[in-house]
């Protein structure tokens, strides 16, 4: 039977690359000179797995390279060598090389051998520099300690006659070994006669049926060698006394090959057991290289590793679904429909479906450590380059989020970390001068909050320089000379396109994307980023992202006779629309006084050109206060309907993107509803109102302190323009 091992290559590459990340983060945590036993063990295991897989799948170069790594790690975990800074450095570099090797092999690309050779040489140097291991066992295999050929000379082996005495210890059976199997294997080497000596059998009363008391004496005649015979006994040589004697040429010196100590081997540790296997290794080397060459450029498909528990949950749920389905079917086949039962069944179905949806979404969820893992290395490399001392603390790396979101959040995170290091943290001298600890801190934190994941990046550096930001913004005309901005507004300026306060373009964060790109990336994911900064104390960036891009929590609203979804994440609150508080009595246009601020009112029926429906006239409109990019606005709607999770369907698939909408969804009744893109709705509104009044300049309702906070239930309450609304808020 031929097994095509190439089908496991993809998995191998994936897990190996993951293993490298594990090794990398492990190495970064190693403390020079300290007791790192468990950490090194983990790193070693990862290296060992990669080597084992590479060997099996025939990626010889990877095997050889990883072998050096493994040797270095093994000596350090067994305490034979010290963990030094330069060892960690070389190991880290070798991880980069290995990553390139694996990627190149996967993609069928050629790798510049020079890159490999250099680091490999340094690894070798490290291996050589280490105190040579006292016992031969840990000497690496490429130079196996064999001094005589063993097997593999089957063709010209002369006939021989051998006597084998096999005296197992009583516990032989309890190693799972069976003398019958061993005798069977001997039969393959030639013809033999067996004599079983059962004299050791105790009396029936003392007999332990689980013990072995028999001694076998075998005379074997065949074209074989001693090494082949001893190989048959390889697994049991510690559990038995084995003597192999050549009968036909008794004078011939038998090559001692590992069983030399067999007469007394009962409690000696195995010696030289590696002999035959090293040979086998060499035999298969050729085939392997062929396999490697034939592998070629297999298309890289993206796949996802799913925890088996998640799959099991899914299977259970599908099982429940099937039960519900058959229950309903049975119900439908009955003569009289039992409505009570039907209702129950449908309730089950609803629950099953909801749970199933949840579980399927769970499959795409991965711990954020996949994104965080690359950051310690970045911090390490950068701090060295910048001459700064940094301690990076990571919390919440097991927080899960959607794979797609994860893939897109990596670059913004890297940028924020770079920024924190480059512009945030001071040099050790400056820090000490300012009474701070020499080592700066960067905290990276992730946690779930509602239906979102929050990622925080905080540093204890200088904080944002508001003076400089404001000056720069004025210079660039982003802010008028006389405009007074709050501190928060000034901080938000750093997200403005093209804004940078770095005096000199530094090598580190001056290149690549700016903060505006970071913000745009996050907004593209439906997320928000905020900065909080205290001069001299540090900055904290807070990113809030939806857990998944496929589903959102939505508020269903009615605008005339049409239904729309407003993402809950954008909604600040929903209030009854009080016409008194608007600067214009006409429905729609104008500014609304809301919590001490004036916000523009956007009449969705106008923005979307929805004609009036006769039956909705006269009902009390509601104002859904939304926020996007720090701007608030009120969306005028006729009714608030359900809040529900919705599955986002792209309009681009069969139509195109539509301004003001982020997509569509299918509601419970099978109809389609449009999902508002609040950001874009606000943008549309601004475009349509080129001469809009400055929000705070408008003079809306008469009483600034007024606050209508009826978190609106469904409409239906009537309210007239003339009603004095100052004191008596709430329902009348």
């Amino acid at each position, binding site marked *: 039977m031929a097994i095509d091992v190439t089908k496991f290559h993809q998995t191998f590459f994936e897990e190996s690359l993951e293993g490298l990340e594990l090794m990398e983060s492990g190495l970064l945590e190693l403390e020079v000179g300290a007791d790192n036993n468990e950490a090194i063990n983990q790193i070693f295991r990862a290296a060992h797995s990669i080597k084992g897989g590479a060997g099996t799948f025939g990626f010889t170069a990877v095997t050889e390279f990883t072998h050096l790594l493994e040797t270095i790690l093994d000596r350090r975990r067994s305490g034979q060598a010290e963990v030094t800074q330069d060892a960690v450095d070389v190991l880290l570099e070798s991880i980069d090389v290995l990553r390139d090797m694996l990627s190149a092999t996967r993609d069928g690309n050629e790798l510049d051998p020079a890159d490999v050779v250099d680091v490999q040489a340094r690894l070798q140097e490290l291996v050589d520099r280490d105190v040579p291991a006292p016992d031969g066992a840990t000497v690496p295999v490429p130079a196996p300690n064999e001094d005589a050929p063993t097997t593999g000379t089957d063709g010209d082996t002369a006939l021989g006659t051998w006597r084998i005495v096999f005296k197992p210890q009583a516990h032989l059976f309890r190693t799972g070994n069976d003398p019958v199997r061993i005798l069977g294997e001997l039969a393959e080497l030639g013809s033999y006669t067996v004599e079983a000596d059962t004299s050791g059998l105790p009396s029936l009363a003392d007999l332990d049926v689980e013990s072995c008391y028999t001694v076998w004496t075998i005379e074997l005649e065949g074209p074989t060698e001693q090494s082949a015979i001893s190989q048959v006994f390889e697994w049991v040589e510690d559990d038995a006394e084995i003597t192999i004697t050549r009968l036909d040429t008794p004078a011939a010196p038998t090559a001692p090959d590992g069983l030399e100590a067999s007469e007394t081997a009962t409690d000696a540790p195995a010696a030289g057991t590696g002999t035959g296997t090293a040979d086998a290794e060499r035999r298969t080397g050729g085939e392997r290289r062929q396999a490697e060459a034939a592998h070629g450029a297999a298309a890289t498909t993206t796949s996802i590793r799913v925890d088996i528990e998640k799959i099991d949950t899914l299977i259970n749920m599908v099982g429940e679904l099937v039960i519900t389905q058959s229950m309903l079917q049975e119900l439908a086949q009955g003569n009289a429909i039992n409505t009570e039962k039907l209702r129950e069944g449908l309730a089950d179905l609803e629950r099953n479906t909801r749970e199933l949806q949840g579980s399927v979404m769970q499959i795409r969820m991965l711990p954020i450590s996949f994104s965080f893992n690359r950051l310690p290395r970045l911090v390490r490399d950068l701090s060295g380059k910048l001459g700064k001392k940094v301690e990076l603390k990571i919390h919440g790396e097991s927080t899960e989020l959607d794979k797609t979101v994860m893939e897109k959040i990596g670059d913004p995170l890297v940028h924020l970390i770079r920024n924190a290091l480059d512009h945030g943290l001071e040099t050790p001298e400056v820090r000490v001068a300012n009474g701070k600890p020499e080592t700066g801190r960067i905290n990276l934190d992730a946690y779930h909050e509602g239906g979102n994941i929050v990622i925080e990046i905080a540093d204890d550096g200088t904080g944002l320089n508001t003076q400089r930001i404001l000056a720069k913004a004025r210079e660039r005309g982003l802010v008028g000379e006389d405009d007074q901005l709050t501190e928060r507004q000034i901080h938000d300026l750093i997200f403005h396109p093209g804004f940078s306060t770095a005096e000199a373009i530094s090598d580190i964060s001056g290149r690549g994307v700016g903060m505006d790109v970071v913000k745009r990336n996050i907004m593209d994911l439906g997320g928000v980023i905020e900065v909080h900064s205290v001069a001299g104390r540090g900055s904290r960036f807070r990113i809030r992202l939806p857990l998944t891009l496929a589903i959102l929590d939505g508020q269903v609203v009615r605008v005339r006779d049409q239904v729309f979804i407003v993402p809950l994440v954008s909604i600040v609150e929903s209030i009854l629309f009080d016409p008194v508080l608007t600067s214009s009595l006409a429905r729609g246009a104008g500014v609304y006084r809301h919590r001490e601020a004036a916000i523009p009112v956007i009449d969705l029926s106008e923005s*979307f050109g929805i004609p009036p429906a006769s039956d909705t006239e006269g009902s009390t409109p509601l104002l859904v206060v939304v926020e996007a990019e720090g701007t608030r606005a009120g969306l005028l709607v006729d009714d608030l309907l359900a809040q529900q999770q919705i599955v986002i369907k792209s309009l681009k698939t069969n*139509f*195109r993107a*539509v301004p003001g909408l982020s997509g*569509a969804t*299918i509601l419970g009744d099978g109809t*389609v509803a449009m999902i508002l893109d609040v950001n874009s709705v606000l943008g549309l509104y601004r475009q349509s109102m080129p001469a809009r009044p400055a929000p705070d300049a408008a003079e809306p309702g008469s009483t600034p302190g007024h606050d209508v906070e009826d978190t609106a239930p469904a409409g239906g309450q009537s309210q007239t323009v003339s009603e004095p609304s100052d004191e008596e808020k709430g329902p009348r």
Partner: protein
Amino acid sequence: MTTITTEFTGTAETGLSTNQYLTFLLGNEEYGVDILRVQEIKGWERATEIPNTPDYIPGVMNLRGTVIPIVDLRRRFELGAADYTSTTVVIVLRIEGETGTRTMGFVVDAVSDVYNVASDHVQPAPDFGSRVNTQFIKGLATVDEKMVILLDIDRLIGLDAVFSSLDVVDDQRSNPSATSPQETE
């Protein structure tokens, strides 16, 4: 490698090909579309309007979990509006365009027939004047003494800016319908 097999109902003697067309009625005219493009024919259900689109796009519908836009061909060709009833028919077609394959529904008065039309029976379209843009008419075929207008549905959609990606019409929110080929009101 996969080979792409093209369906040919050819007449060997002439070397000419015959295509099958599904025909439908719009007012007094009979139109045909390549039957290989037809995915299904379904009844009218209330569509959800897409904001700021011309009136010949009544909205989108749910086709078994996929959201597809609907084009009212009667309005598109300015043949006057007809009420949508439960007997109104939507032909779901596959549209091939630069951006890939899309699925769209087309509202017609009624589905008529399926015809085999040999390519030599197709004549080029005459100038219909300003009413109908002949660019998306493949030709005219005479079948059983009747004239059938064969539509090139890909071009009908491809030439209509309403269906082009937002990157092009982004921010031109002012009046998307003004970009459609012939608006003569």
